[in-house]
């Protein structure tokens, strides 16, 4: 457990020092999005990497959070914090309700059902023009405020969002090292064996699905208040796939893997700007290379690299896994 605290402290330190390295400007704005994507990836990894249940509809929960907060604050003048909580509760109840029928499905069928849900929600965002503003989007969402301070700059938003990210990461680490985490991995491996040990697999799957949906929803609310303008295009099917890529590239079943995957996939397109028109080709090539050579994800690949280095320098012990 002490090693877990050490890892978390190291991660928190890197996060807190990151703004100093980029000295403001555009890249700081990108780091804010790294934070939001980290939330989403960690949420999805709890479901996919630990419980072994796929979801291709995560963007829908993300969008529901964004539109929930956006509509309630911009059109109805609610307090943003109150709107965030209301959206999270509503999405929680919704996910719990649809979780029972949907999570009876397995494998490809579960993928199809969650995909369908994502598409339905996407259509609602586009077509309920009176409420959501339709394809042209919803402007005028206020920034969050706390104790007389408005989170209107990138630096303020950076610390706000990353405070939430670090809290969620800490809670997620705690969860996966608990009795519940063990039970989730057991369901992943063999649902029948888990059930005959007394694990209520059906309920637990729905609970983790709900948990992951609520995390996505909160990420959506934070996104809405940060960018102050939202449109359906950000919450489509391709974004669900992007999240899936983050989780898989980072490493299934590793919380820090998701942090790493989210950071890499958010920063990579920015770094590849130098390739100009060819950036998408290089991006695709890197994804293929990573899945081929690091099938266990970046985290496992990093571990392998370290053990290779250790072999090069014999006699230097230590535990890096």
């Amino acid at each position: 457990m002490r090693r877990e605290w050490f890892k978390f402290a190291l991660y928190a330190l890197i996060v807190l020092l990151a703004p100093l390295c980029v000295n403001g400007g555009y890249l700081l704005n990108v780091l804010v999005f790294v934070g939001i994507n980290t939330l989403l990836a960690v949420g999805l990894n709890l479901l996919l990497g630990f419980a072994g249940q796929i979801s291709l509809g995560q963007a829908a929960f993300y969008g529901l959070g964004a539109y929930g907060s956006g509509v309630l604050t911009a059109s109805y003048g609610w307090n943003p914090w109150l709107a965030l909580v209301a959206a999270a509760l509503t999405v929680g109840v919704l996910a719990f309700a649809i979780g029972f029928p949907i999570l009876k499905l397995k494998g490809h069928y579960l993928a199809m059902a969650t995909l369908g849900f994502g598409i339905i929600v996407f259509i609602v965002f586009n077509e309920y023009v009176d409420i959501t503003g339709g394809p042209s989007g919803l402007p005028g969402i206020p920034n969050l405020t706390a104790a007389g301070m408005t989170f209107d700059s990138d630096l303020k938003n950076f610390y706000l969002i990353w405070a939430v990210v670090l809290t969620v990461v800490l809670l997620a680490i705690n969860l996966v090292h608990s009795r519940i985490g063990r039970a989730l991995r057991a369901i992943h491996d063999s649902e029948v064996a888990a059930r005959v040990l007394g694990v209520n697999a059906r309920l637990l799957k729905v609970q983790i699905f709900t948990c992951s949906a609520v995390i996505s929803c909160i990420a959506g609310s934070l996104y809405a208040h940060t960018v102050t303008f939202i449109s359906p295009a950000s919450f489509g099917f391709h974004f669900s796939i992007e999240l899936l890529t983050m989780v898989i590239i980072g490493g299934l079943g590793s919380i820090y893997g998701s942090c790493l995957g989210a950071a890499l996939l958010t920063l990579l397109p920015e770094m590849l700007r130098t390739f100009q028109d060819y950036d998408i080709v290089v991006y695709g090539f890197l994804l293929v290379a990573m899945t081929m050579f690091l099938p266990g994800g970046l985290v496992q690949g990093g571990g392998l690299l370290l053990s290779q280095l250790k072999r090069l320098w014999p006699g230097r012990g230590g535990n890096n896994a």
Partner: protein
Amino acid sequence: MELLKLKNVNTWYGAVHALKNVSLHLLPGEIVTLIGANGAGKTTLLNTVSAVTPARDGDIRFAGEPIQQCEPERIVELGISQVPEGRQVFKPLTVEDNLELGAYLRFRRREPRKAIRADLEEMYTLFPRLRERRKQLAGTLSGGEQQMLAIGRALMAKPTVLLLDEPSMGLAPLVVQEIFGVIAALSRDKGVTVLLVEQNAKAALKLANRGYVLETGKVILEGVAAELLENPEVQRAYLGKDKKEIWER
């Protein structure tokens, strides 16, 4: 009084009638074996008791209480644990995680950690090889060790009835002997009641007090194990004795 009693139980897999009017009982402290060929319904019977494959009709009672409507979790809570066929240990988890998962419901009931810890130690005493490998992933264990782990995991729930599904499957004769020795010790020292499903009819009947013979979903024979061992029908069909003709070209 019977600890576990099945009366006229019928189980279906879709259109397949897998258990046909099966009746069976376990007395407290007994070892009862269920033998039969592949596809006779032995595993189905265990899964029906565990409520993983619920019965369509009939009556299943545990200590006099009907348990047919229960969810699998409730069955474990009542004190019936299954060691599933093919071991089904959680391969990506460590040996210790596997054992602690066996005590899942006890953790949930907030039983004192100390008691669970003590039981964990007891499992390591029962299966010393698991102690050596406690931090190892379960998938890296040998078949025999995985079987021991699966039994240990089920015992962590502190069951009164243990349902064992073919613990000898794919194991070397010496390892089978060791595992059967443990089953005998569990019954003798801890008073655990055992329902043992086996293909290895001879070893199972030697270990058990009573036995049932299942054929295409029906109980065709039942009785004291020693008598079943001598039964010509059983000897011919399951022990390979007194073959009238030997087919070979």
